[in-house]
């Protein structure tokens, strides 16, 4: 049987576009599921992905990936590797699994929506592979932690987290619903595959895989590398979609979609990856700081991609985003450590004297802004007052990103003009925002977000009973055994105060 080269048949078999005659276009591609932004139907037919794959190639590649990574898991699962990992690193991967595993499955819904409502056959073809990718990612990232359950009961949160009202899970659900579960196919291509995957997760997974190998977590490193190779392929769906929008005069729509989702992605990325890189990864295995990583991979490379497409950097880039690289994730780290019973992993303070020295070197001024808080906390721990390091009330939570409002830390760091939250009174309800960009995203589409309630809204609205810290923890499905504790049982705080002074230089 003669075999044709792929290039001789690929376009022919892939591009099965057709003109509609029995139904109207809007019946096949309703705007709620596929907003064409006014482009003529046939304008989409030139959509072309830069990286090609056929179904036999796809199956062959994926089979090889799964065979390799599951083999590593089977071997490591019989070893003591996990027990020997640094406590902070364990926290990083338990946090990762809870935030990412089920959303990977949800992303398969997004890909399948593009597989049906994408506006070109080539796109629908790629999205079908993307659907299979994300199903694999959901399965493998629940299977691996399942194998840890005997040694790490909190690995259960890989599956559990997104089904709870834990505040971080609410934040993740809000982001992912906005980005893909409740998004139309065209916007999903721009926001999920270009902004989130190309901009953040593809790079994050590269970085995490490298970090995992450095700390000796071969299992997680193999897993993340395997996923990243899929991300690199299906994330390319955004590029041709943006090009078409720009070519047909809808640069405004593409820009708005990117600006909106870049900010929202940054919020969660700072929380998850910022803490992991600068506090949870053992000091001796840290390469770049989180800020250096962001500057190299996001600020430079991703910004270059914006510009290649004729887009501008987001309006908040210089005034809000870049300054936050110096303080935002440090504030979240302190807050999440203090409110540690409200998360399902064990936060690693990461502020032993030598770690403070590293933080001050990477973030000049860190000690003046954050070190004093840690000094007070450490003094309480050394004095045998751990109860003074535990919360008795809640932080306010942003009505857009659902992350606690830490603007005062930005003010203290000299990066914000005011420590106050942004407030919007609208239709009889008070909304609170952590930042100007979060308020901007909300006001771009208030009807999309106004029905959401934060955990604080629910507390004030009487949904959380009893209305106490204990009641809230139960509402968040956190039993005493599951609530976060300090990852090192306060070992970091035992260093003498003089050591802290030395660390400050």
């Amino acid at each position, binding site marked *: 049987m003669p075999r044709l080269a792929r290039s001789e048949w690929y376009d022919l078999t892939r591009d099965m576009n057709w003109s509609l005659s029995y139904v109207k276009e809007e019946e096949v591609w309703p705007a709620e599921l596929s907003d064409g932004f006014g482009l003529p139907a046939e304008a989409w037919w030139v959509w072309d992905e830069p990286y090609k794959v056929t179904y036999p190639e796809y199956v062959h590649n994926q089979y090889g990936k799964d065979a390799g990574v599951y083999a590593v898991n089977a071997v490591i699962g019989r070893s003591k590797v996990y027990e020997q990992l640094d406590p902070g690193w364990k926290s990083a991967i338990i946090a990762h699994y809870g935030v990412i595993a089920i959303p990977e499955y949800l992303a398969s819904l997004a890909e399948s929506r593009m597989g049906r409502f994408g506006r070109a056959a080539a796109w629908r073809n790629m999205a079908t592979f993307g659907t299979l990718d994300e199903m694999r990612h959901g399965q493998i990232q629940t299977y691996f932690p399942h194998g840890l359950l005997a040694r790490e009961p909190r690995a259960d949160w890989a599956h559990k987290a997104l089904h709870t009202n834990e505040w971080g899970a609410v934040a993740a659900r809000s982001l992912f619903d906005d980005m893909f579960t409740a998004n139309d196919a065209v916007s999903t291509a721009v926001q999920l595959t270009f902004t989130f995957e190309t901009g953040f997760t593809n790079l994050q997974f590269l970085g995490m895989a490298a970090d995992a190998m450095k700390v000796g977590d071969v299992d997680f490193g193999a897993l993340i590398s395997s996923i990243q190779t899929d991300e690199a392929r299906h994330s390319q769906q955004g590029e041709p979609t943006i090009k078409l929008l720009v070519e047909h005069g809808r640069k405004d729509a593409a820009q708005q979609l990117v600006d909106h989702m870049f900010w929202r992605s940054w919020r969660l990325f700072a929380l998850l990856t910022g803490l992991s890189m600068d506090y949870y990864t053992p000091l001796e295995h840290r390469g770049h700081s989180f800020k250096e990583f962001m500057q190299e991979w996001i600020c430079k490379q991703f910004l270059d991609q914006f510009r290649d497409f004729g887009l501008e950097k987001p309006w908040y880039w210089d005034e809000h985003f870049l300054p936050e690289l110096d303080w935002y994730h440090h504030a979240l780290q302190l807050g999440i450590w203090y409110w540690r019973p409200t998360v399902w992993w064990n936060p690693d303070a990461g502020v032993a004297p030598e770690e403070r020295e590293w933080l001050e070197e990477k973030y000049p001024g860190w000690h003046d802004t954050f070190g*004093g808080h840690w000094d*007070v906390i450490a003094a309480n721990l050394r004095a045998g007052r751990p109860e003074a*390091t535990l919360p008795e009330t*809640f*932080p306010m939570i942003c009505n857009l990103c659902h992350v*606690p409002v830490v603007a*005062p830390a930005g003010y203290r760091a000299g990066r914000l003009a005011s*420590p106050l939250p942004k407030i919007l009174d609208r239709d009889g309800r008070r909304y609170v925002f952590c930042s100007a960009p979060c308020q901007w995203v909300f006001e771009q589409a208030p009807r999309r977000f106004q029905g959401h309630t934060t955990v*604080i809204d629910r507390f004030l609205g009487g949904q959380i009973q009893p209305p106490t810290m204990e009641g809230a923890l139960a509402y968040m499905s956190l039993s005493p055994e599951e609530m976060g504790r300090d990852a090192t049982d306060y070992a970091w705080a035992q260093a003498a105060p003089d050591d802290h002074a030395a660390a400050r230089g």
Partner: protein
Amino acid sequence: MALFPLQALFDGDLVVLLVPVDDADPMTVVADKVAHHVVDRRVAAQDRPLRVRHDGRTLPDDATVVSAGVKPLDVVVVGYAS
């Protein structure tokens, strides 16, 4: 006498808090209720009286939440007197 939720910020702290007070509480009590969650927890104590600011003005110590015109979920800023 009714429970009254405020957004509260203590000078030098890093986060905006939800602090329930009573609408009849004078500002001295409001200040103490906010400070309870912050002072000697994340911010070192100082031997100076506390003051409450709202909408850019310092409220009298004997003003109550209601008499000062503070609304539910308004932001109050508590800090040491200069």
